C-alpha cells in the first residue's frame, strides 16, 4: 500500500480523536480522544519514515510515545486531583474561566 493509504488512515483516526475531544463530557473521555490523536500522529511519522528510507521518523515516534506517556500520567493525576476538589469530572462544570 502506498504512503497515501497510511496517511489517509492516520487522518481518519485523527479526526475521530478530534471528534471525541470535542464532544465528550467526561474529562477522562477527553483524554482518551487525545490518545487517539497522538496515535494517529505516530502512524504518520512511522509511515513517512518507512517510505523515505530513513529512520528519523521512528526516532521521532519513540520520543513522542515517551512524552505521551508522561502527559497521560500527569493528566490523569490532574483529573484525580480535580475530582477531589470539585467532586466532579464533568467538563461542563469546569467553567471558572467563563466570561
Amino acid at each position, binding site marked *: 500500500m502506498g504512503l497515501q493509504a497510511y496517511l489517509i488512515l492516520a487522518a481518519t483516526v485523527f479526526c475521530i480523536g*478530534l471528534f471525541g*475531544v*470535542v464532544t*465528550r463530557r467526561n474529562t477522562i473521555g*477527553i483524554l482518551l480522544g487525545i490518545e487517539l490523536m497522538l496515535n494517529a500522529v505516530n502512524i504518520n511519522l512511522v509511515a513517512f519514515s518507512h517510505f523515505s528510507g530513513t529512520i528519523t521518523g521512528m526516532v521521532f515516534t519513540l520520543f513522542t510515545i515517551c512524552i505521551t506517556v508522561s502527559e497521560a500520567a500527569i493528566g490523569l493525576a490532574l483529573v484525580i486531583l480535580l475530582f477531589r476538589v470539585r467532586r466532579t469530572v464533568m*467538563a*461542563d462544570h*469546569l*467553567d*471558572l*474561566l*467563563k*466570561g
Partner: protein
Amino acid sequence: MMSDPAILALVALLLPAASFLILAIVAPLRLLGRPAAYTSILFAAGSLAAAIGAWRGHAEQQVTRLAWDWLPSNGVSIATLGILADRDSTLMLILVALVAFLVQLYSVEYLHDEAPAALGRYYTYHSLFAFSMMGVVLAPNLLQLFICWELVGLCSFLLIGFWYQKPEAARAAVKAFWTTKAGDVGLLIGIILLWRVAGTFDIGELRTLVTSGAIPVEGLSLITFCIYLGAVGKSAQFPLHTWLPDAMEGPTPVSALIHAATMVTAGVYLLHRTVFLFPPDVLMVVAWIGAFTALLAAVLACVQDDIKRVLAYSTVSQLGYMMAAIGAGFSSAGFFHLLTHGLFKALLFLGAGAMIHAVHSNDLPRMGGLAKTMPQTAIVFVIGTLSIAGIPLFGGFLSKEEILGATLAGHQTGPFVLLMTVAFLTAFYMFRVVFLAFFAVRATHASPLHVAAGPANHLRQGSGGPPKLQAKPEAGHYDGPPEAGHHDTPHDPPAVMMLPLWVLAVLSLGVGIYSTTLGHFLQFGPGAEGAAEHAAPGWLTPAAVGVAIAGIGLAWLVYQRRTIDAGRLASAFGPIRTAALNKFWIDDIYEGILALALLAFSRIVGWIDRYLVDGVLNVVSAWTVSAGGLLRTVQTGRAQDYVYGVAVGLLILILWMRWALT
C-alpha cells in the same frame, strides 16, 4: 495731491478719534469726569473749526480725494481708506461737528450730577460717535462707509444704554441695535453684490461706470433695494421704525445728537450719495415707504404724552419726508431738508431737555405755563416749532416746500397727498406740545396725577387736555438724570445749556430768512441727481403754508382756547386713536413673531439634540454594550469549546489556503 481743504477735512475727522483714543486709553483722565468732558469738547471745537475751513475750501463742484491703499490683492488694492470731500460732504461734516460740539457743551450742565467715571465714559462714547459719523460722511467707498456705519450703530447702542442700570434703557439699546442690524444685513449684501457687478467699492468709480453705461441701472434693482434696507434700519423707516421711540431712554442730549441730526440721517445721506445707482422702480418704493412712514409717525405723535416721544415720532416723520424726496428723484431736496431738520430738531430736543430738567418729568400733562417761568426756552422752542411746521422765514419752510414740489415734479401724486396731510398733522401735534407745555395752566402737585405704574384707565384732572387711556404705564416716566434735590420752580437753564440753544435757534432762523428771501437754497455739489431746481407750481407755496397754519389753528382751538373739546375730538377718531396708543401693535407683532420663531426653532433644535445627537450616542453605546454581551458568550470557560474553536479555525485556514491562495 494733498490740498488744504482735504487736509482740513481729514483733521476734522481725526480730532474726535484722537479724543476718543486719549479718553479710552488714559483711564485716569476719563475717570476724573470733568476734565474728560473738557478734553472732548475742546477737540470737538477744533473739529468744527476744521470742518468749516474744509467747507469754505470747496468751491462749487470741487471734489478732493485722499486715498490710501488698504486691502492689497493681486497687486491692486480692493479697497482704499480715505476721504472724499465735496460740497455735500463738507456741509454734512459741518452739521455733524456743530451739533456734536453743541451737544457736548450742553451735556456738561445737563449731566452735572453724574458720577465722574460715568461722565468720562459718556464723553468717550461721544468722541467715538463723532469720529464714526464723520467717517460715514467722508467715506469715498462703500466699504469704509459700512465700517463707519457699523461703528455708528455701536455708539448708538452705547449711548442709548448709557444708564444701563435702568432695565428699560438696556432693553431699548439692544432693541435699537438689533433693529438697525436687520437693515445692516441688507446693506452688506447690497454692497457685496454691487462689488460683484461693478468690481469696485469706490463711489466715484461707480458713478463713472453708471454714467458711461457700463452698468445698466435697471439690473441693479435688487442690489439697490438691499442698500436701501440699510437706510430703512438706520433712518427708521417703516417697518424698522420701532427702535427710535424706545431709544428715548437715553439722555436727551444724546437724542438730540443721534436721533435728530446725525445718526438717523446717515441713511438719507447714504441714499443721497448712491442715488445714481437706483432704478425707477426702487425709487418708487423708497418714495412710498417714506410717505407712509411720515404719515404713520405723525398719527402716532398726536397721541403721545411724553414730550420726547413726540419728538421721536416727529423725527421719524421728517425722515420719511426726506426719503420721499429722494424717491421722487430730487435727492438734493431731501439733503437740504436733512440739514435744516438737523438744526431745528436738535434745537427742539435740547429745549425739551431744558424743560425736562426743570420739571423733572417727561410728561406733557405735568408741564404747563412754562412760558412765564422759562421765557428764553419758550422763545427758542417756538422758533424750532415754527421751523418744523414750515412757516416762511423759518428754517424748515423752504426745504419742506422743496420736498413737496419734488414729489409733484416726480409725478408721485400719492406720496404728495400723504405728505400734505402730514404737514397738517405736524403743525398740529407740535403746537399741541407748545400750547400744553408753555401756555396752558400748569398742573399743581395736588391734582391726582398719574405717575409711573398706574391702572390701565384713569381720567386726569387739572390742566387742560383730553382724558387719556394709558395703555402702558410709561407716562410720567422720567428719563433724565437721577434726582439730586432740585428746587421746585422751573426756570431757564443755566448759560452753558442756553448757549447751544441760542446758537441753533439763530442758525435755524438765519437759514430760514436767507432761503425765504433769496428764494433758492444753497447750491449743492455733484451729489444731486436730476435737476437741482425744479419748477414748482405756483399754488404749492400758499397751499403748504395754508395747511400748516390750519394745523396750528386747530391746535390753538383745542388746547389753548378749549373751544373744541379735546375729548370729543379724540372720540371722533376713536379706533385710530386706540390703535395709535398701541403703536398699531407693530411692536407686539414683532415680539410675537420673534417669540414664535425662536420658540419653534429652539424646540426643533432641542428635539434634534435630544433624539438625534444624544440618540445617536445612546444607540451606539447601547449597541456596544449588547455586542459586548453577545461576544461574551463565546467565552464559555470550558476548555473543550476552545479546542473546538481551534479545530474550526484550522479548518478555515486549510480551506483558505487551498482554495483562495492557489
